[in-house]
């Protein structure tokens, strides 16, 4: 299927090559391994495969029919239909990396605009063209910091209020670097880990201090002091940010951070069971040569017309090979396009609006839940759009209840923070409005009674 050749054409081609059969082309393949049988189901045409694949999709419950209070790194935002209509354009989705700028200005200018939006969102000066996801972007930021100090500073400090999956990925990514030390101070005094607990560990050996904002529990802090202290010790600071929060909140740049990374999924990218998403990395301009991934820069063509090219490619694997800043090649081009279209559509007004809706809905919910018998809101003010609530029974029990009423309940924290028994992390967006929150609270109230 999808091969246009007719038998006659194949024959003509073979004849031109002086061959009798296609098999002869594979004589270099060791005979005993050649042409193995493949135990796969028989191929289907499009009509049947559609039915077959739809069968899988229908075996899921989705946020189309269920209300979703799950967050913890992926958020159920509304995606304007204009976004996908651009993504469906063959000129975008069937092109590859813009190696040939003369016939790739569409992709190049889009990336350039993406970089600009990310810089303006974070108040930093240089953004790359995208990274795999928020977690890997965070890991790359650690490598950036490590190599910024030429490997001479060997400590990476991670706040324990960083998404645990992100911390895991940082550990995995850095596991090839022998002498690096990753520290996460777990402060078990408090029910929710203290993001400032790492402060005491910042020293002259620290390459990077990394915190999350809003943190994994939804809390927001002004990290300006922490950043200043880090800088006093010569360390760099990276904030892991939620881009929707930055519609309203003080930015990494405003706080003095050196690097900001994050997950761009909330910017018009479907949940899609976890991917493909969109990592972004922005930094102060001094760090640009240490950044991973592609960068697009403005220039002119031979007639002086404005245009864009991939630039500083000497950092990258295809030029620099084993000395590259990262091995990344394909990144998340189409997802960066989605985010660029989304941010362009919303613009200044819309970004503030969606940010405010998330904030307001979360605060309303927190107030209502706090009044429910047996429930406690652990996330203190100020917070953005996620809260931790402690439930009177197990999260599993409650979620089961919610599911029966068409609601996907929160994320059970106990699996990753064993101290947080019966705690769930709830996320709110512009889709979880008053009516929906009221329903949630009604069910929570009932679920206590059985």
């Amino acid at each position, binding site marked *: 299927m999808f091969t246009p050749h007719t038998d006659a054409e194949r024959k003509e081609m073979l004849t031109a090559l002086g061959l009798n059969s296609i098999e002869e082309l594979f004589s270099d393949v060791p005979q005993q391994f050649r042409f193995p049988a493949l135990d796969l189901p028989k191929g289907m045409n499009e009509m049947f495969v559609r039915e077959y694949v739809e069968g899988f999709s229908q075996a899921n419950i989705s946020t*189309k029919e269920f209300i979703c209070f799950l967050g913890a790194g992926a958020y159920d935002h509304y995606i304007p239909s204009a976004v996908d209509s651009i993504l469906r354009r063959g000129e975008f989705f069937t092109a590859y990396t813009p190696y040939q700028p003369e016939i790739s200005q569409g992709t190049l200018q889009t990336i350039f605009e993406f*970089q600009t939006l990310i810089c303006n969102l974070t108040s930093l000066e240089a953004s790359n063209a995208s990274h795999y996801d928020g977690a890997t972007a965070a890991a790359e930021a650690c490598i950036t910091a490590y190599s910024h100090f030429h490997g001479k500073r060997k400590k990476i400090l991670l706040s324990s209020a960083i998404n645990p999956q992100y911390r895991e990925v940082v550990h995995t990514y850095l596991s090839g670097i022998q002498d690096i030390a990753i520290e996460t101070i777990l402060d078990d005094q408090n029910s929710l880990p203290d993001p400032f607990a790492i402060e005491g560990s910042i020293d002259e050996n620290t390459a990077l201090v990394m915190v999350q904002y809003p943190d994994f529990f939804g809390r927001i802090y002004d990290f300006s002091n922490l950043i200043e202290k880090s800088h006093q010790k010569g360390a760099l600071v990276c904030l892991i940010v939620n881009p929707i929060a930055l519609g309203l909140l003080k930015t990494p740049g405003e706080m003095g951070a050196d690097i900001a990374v994050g997950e761009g999924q909330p910017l018009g990218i479907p949940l899609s069971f976890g991917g493909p998403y969109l990592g972004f990395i922005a930094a102060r301009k001094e760090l640009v040569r240490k950044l991973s991934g592609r960068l697009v820069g403005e220039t002119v063509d031979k007639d002086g017309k404005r245009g864009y090219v991939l630039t500083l490619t000497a950092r990258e694997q295809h030029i620099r090979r084993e000395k590259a800043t990262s091995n990344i090649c394909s990144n998340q081009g189409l997802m960066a396009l989605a985010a660029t279209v989304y941010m362009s559509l919303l613009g200044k007004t819309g970004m503030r609006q969606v940010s405010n809706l998330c904030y307001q809905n979360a605060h309303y919910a927190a107030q209502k839940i706090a009044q429910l018998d047996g429930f406690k809101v652990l996330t203190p003010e100020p917070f953005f759009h996620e809260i931790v609530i402690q439930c009177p029974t197990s999260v599993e029990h409650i979620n089961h209840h919610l599911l029966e009423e068409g609601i996907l309940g929160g994320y059970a924290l106990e699996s990753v923070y064993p101290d947080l028994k019966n705690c769930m992390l709830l996320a709110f967006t512009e889709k979880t409005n008053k009516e929906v929150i009221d329903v949630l609270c009604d069910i929570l109230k009932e679920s206590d009674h059985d």
Partner: protein
Amino acid sequence: MTEPTIYELSSPDRTGFLFQEPNVPASPLPKDLLRDDLPFPEMSEIDVIRHFTRLSQLNYCIDVGFYPLGSCTMKYNPRINEEMARLPGFAMSHPLQPIETVQGNLALMYQLQEWLKEVSGFVGITLQPAAGAHGEFVGGLIMRAYHRSRNDLKRTKVLVPDSAHGTNPATSSMSGFDVINVPSDERGNIDLEKLKEICDDCVAGLMLTNPNTLGLFEEHLKEVIDIIHQKGGLVYGDGANFNALLGIIKPGEIGFDIMHFNLHKTFSTPHGGGGPGSGPVAVAAPLIDFLPSPVVGIVEAGDEETPPLYGFINPTQSIGRMKAFYGHFGVLVRAFTYIAMQGADGLRNIAENAVLNANYLKHLLGDTYSIPFNRNCMHEFVAEGFWDDAPGVHALDVAKRMMDYGVHPPTNYFPLIVKEALMIEPTETESKQELEKFADIMKKIAQEAHSDPELLHNAPHNTPLGRLDEVKAAKELVLCCWIPPEE
């Protein structure tokens, strides 16, 4: 006409999406934690659609014509894939939903794992890697973890042939290894003698691309693998070129220990202007426990009446998590759809026709372009983009001139071991007519290179922009169209 940027198209107070007012009682915003102005553009929906529609028209793409970018397998991206990935059951499911509510997703991933293992001859697999290079990184870390688990700490080196893609050495060093180059012989194979010389018990493994980046099948494949294995090393297969091998050979059977797939190459998922890719990694039995966590497995066996319950399993000696969640699920759905349509026969048919196309095109060009290592190629081949009797004309000039004829140039200046390389991968979805048209264009350009070299030097002529000044871009480093001026 150059397209204005979104900031140039912006006008104060405009917006392209109207949100509702909150319908909850207002909570005060945290005063000390608010940002200053948000310097974002302000456009209406029509502005945005027009801008990106016009931008799109400045791109070349598979949907418009031939795109023989070597090593990238720019085959046709079937439209049904796009429909399937957008089904709400898939696209609107949250990664942290209870597994009972996403059995469709998990069953699909499980099935895809089985299929990929079957076509490659391996026994373990992870779908987590986001792209080929990410898969390589997984492979590098698995090598490392494997040797360490056996307390074999001396293995600090990874061998990489000189024809390898840049990601191979970059990956090796990211994984903490020293990179040792292995030269090629005059037939484009690994230089066996040199390999034996270099290979010792400090070698963690070899990263081998087969067919290699010259498009050639390694003629001493078994020997190469054996040499590494004899010294206790592992053989990593860069599966970027797996399109040539579907139903032709199972790498796991001949002795590869690890291999990554590029679903966005072999399995027809779109390249998206530079991603998203997907780079599942398959391994041989001794390495299964090192796979990144989690992998999809059956957590409760089924029976006649009930299907099994699918869920996540953490391998016992896992290298850890490589990204958030489970991989590029949307890309997996596309690849799954494609394999389901092809079946066993379809897959072999793909490899056969990809290889036939490359050989036929090589044949058509053989008289005009010099082709080093000229033997039967697999899915691609490398020609030289220069002629002794056309001094001053370079591969780059040939490439740029192709654009004037409405085709995408091949990969150029890679692999590094060929002078002025033009790396041509037609893929199986191009017709004989398309190949012939392309060959005619390349021959025409070869003529022009001799008769009118300036035509090539100044090419392209018919594109939205002419050649761009890359030096200026790197020197001035303008990376944003608009940043608010400091006050």
